[in-house]
């Protein structure tokens, strides 16, 4: 489609003239065993249309029934976001014709969300805390997945579409912020930090795997600009399905620059949805909001109201995880991390991963070493969030255990991660299959040491003359010969045994 590259205003110039207002809508796909309104399973990656039934296909005569655990999850999310919980609320039908919803409506909530009026204190990378007000969090259901078949591969120009309804009806919680104002130059960073911290909270609650690469957590970014120093809100655009922290940050920045260019040229912003293009880092026009937004909501007649009794809400309040800020302080102390070390872990999105790795038996410093540098680099290379990398905390703990046992060293451990990411099995299996174990067998090492001595007579003589530190060169030669798989401490002993 004709994605024109819009004129942009330099970022600093945007801020000289405008104040950004930011709003985020995050959809969280819950990790319940079954769908929101029927007993179909929710597993990821099943064969198309194998997790569907008359209810989620919208067949005549089928009746929905609300998943209790989904309601509990919604309430727990609301409580964790410091929301009020509705004493009484209903589901509503959001009517639209689009084949991703076979019923021709989405069962959602309209003016009676189950959670409302909350906040989250978001910590930025430098430690500054910004309070983000939550307007509401409501229950709804996910849509099916369409594949567009045609020459362009995109929706425009598609000849027809193929739809898989396995995802249709999976419980979603939509969390909507109030407009975030006053963030100024930090608006993109606030957006990123909010989504990252919200994800951390969702995982800590255990209500979703929250994998962004699988669409368990999807962000829509609303942005508007107002002339600097005024109270008014400008016309907003909504950029849909921005699916990584980095993209959230980039999308906000891009829209700020694009809006400013349109406004500076005397134009006006069209209220519309926009598509984010990960590859080019731009947004393009989707559909205009005005004519599409007549959803004719009405109360869902097939479902009775949800009226959580106070005792139930209190009971759920008792299941909330520790407050994230308090938890960070506690863990930093327990793990003996300095403030910058802890901040790096948090900023890398590694806090929960380090916690789970420590729980699986690794030392905090080892867990930090792997997640905070080696694995974060690999996630960046692969263009995924750290938590979405196909390595588990238990595996990292096992790799470290192999290092601690002397089976492998740090260098070989990196090759073990290669194997884990390539799906070659458990760490022990990767070591076995790739032949990565450190050689500490004297026979093999002795031969390599002898040939290193023969090849470096000058170095050998220095050691005989008492310059023990020269042994490093011979150890290096042996390591090279053994492709890094020699037990360096044992090599050193063998060298010194022969020459001193």
């Amino acid at each position, binding site marked *: 489609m004709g994605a024109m590259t819009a004129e942009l205003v330099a970022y600093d110039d945007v801020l000289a003239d405008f104040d950004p207002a930011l709003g985020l809508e995050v959809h969280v796909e819950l990790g319940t065993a079954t769908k929101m309104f029927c007993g179909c399973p929710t597993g990821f990656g099943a064969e198309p249309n194998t997790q569907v039934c008359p209810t989620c296909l919208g067949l005549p005569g089928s009746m929905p029934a609300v998943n209790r655990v989904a309601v509990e999850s919604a309430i727990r999310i609301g409580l964790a976001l410091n929301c009020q919980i509705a004493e009484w609320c209903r589901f509503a039908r959001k009517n639209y014709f689009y084949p991703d919803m076979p019923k021709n409506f989405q069962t959602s909530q309209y003016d009676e969300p189950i959670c409302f009026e909350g906040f989250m204190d978001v910590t930025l990378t430098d430690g500054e805390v910004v309070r983000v007000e939550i307007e509401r969090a409501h229950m709804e259901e996910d849509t099916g997945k*369409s594949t567009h078949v045609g020459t362009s591969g995109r929706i425009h120009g598609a000849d027809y579409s193929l739809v898989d309804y396995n995802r249709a009806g999976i419980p979603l919680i939509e969390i909507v912020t109030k407009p975030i104002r006053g963030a100024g130059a930090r608006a993109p960073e606030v957006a990123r930090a909010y989504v990252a911290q919200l994800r951390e909270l969702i995982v800590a609650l255990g209500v979703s795997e929250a994998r962004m690469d699988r669409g368990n957590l999807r962000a829509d970014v609303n942005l508007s600009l107002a002339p600097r120093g005024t109270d008014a809100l400008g016309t907003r655009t909504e950029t849909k399905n921005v699916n990584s922290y980095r993209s959230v940050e980039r999308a906000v920045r891009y829209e700020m620059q694009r809006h400013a260019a349109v406004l500076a040229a005397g134009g006006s912003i069209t209220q519309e949805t926009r598509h984010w293009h990960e590859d080019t880092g731009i947004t393009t026009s989707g559909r205009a909001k005005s004519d599409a937004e007549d959803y004719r909501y009405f109360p869902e007649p097939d479902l009775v109201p*949800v*009226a959580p009794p106070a005792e139930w809400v209190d009971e759920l309040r008792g299941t909330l995880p520790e407050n994230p800020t308090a938890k960070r302080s506690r863990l930093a102390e327990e793990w003996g991390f300095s403030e910058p070390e802890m901040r790096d872990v948090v900023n890398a999105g590694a806090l929960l991963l380090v916690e789970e790795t420590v729980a699986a038996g690794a030392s905090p410093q080892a867990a930090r070493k792997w997640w905070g540098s080696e694995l974060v680099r690999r996630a960046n290379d692969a263009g995924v969030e750290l938590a979405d990398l196909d390595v588990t905390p238990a595996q990292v703990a096992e790799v470290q255990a192999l290092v601690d046992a002397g089976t492998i060293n740090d260098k070989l451990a990196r090759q073990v991660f290669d194997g884990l990411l390539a799906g070659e099995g458990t760490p022990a299996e990767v070591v076995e299959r790739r032949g990565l174990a450190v050689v500490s067998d004297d026979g093999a090492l002795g031969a390599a040491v002898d040939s290193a001595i023969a090849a470096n007579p000058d170095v050998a003589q220095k050691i005989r003359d008492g310059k023990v530190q020269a042994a490093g060169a011979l150890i290096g030669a042996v390591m090279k010969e053994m492709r890094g798989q020699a037990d360096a401490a044992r090599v050193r002993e063998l060298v010194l045994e022969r020459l001193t």
Partner: protein
Amino acid sequence: MAQISADEVRHLADLARIDLSDAELEHLAPQLSVILDSVASISEVASDDVPPTSHPLPLTNVFREDVVTPSLTPEEALSGAPDAQEQRFAVPRILGDEQ
């Protein structure tokens, strides 16, 4: 007396994906006005302190446990579809936009 214009009926028809001719729009507009008037008479008996009823049963919190029940087979699921390919429902080219 509610007055529904032909344009309003056209808008509703568009939303409901019903194709109506101009003659039909003119024909239906006064009929819909009459229906609205009839329904509006309810507000004469229901004062502001009577909330609209959405459900006739005095029930709340009817929940299902989060336990998997058997799904349809793909063959069953697709049996009523006018067209299917690759175990998916085939639908006509979509002119609108993704939701």
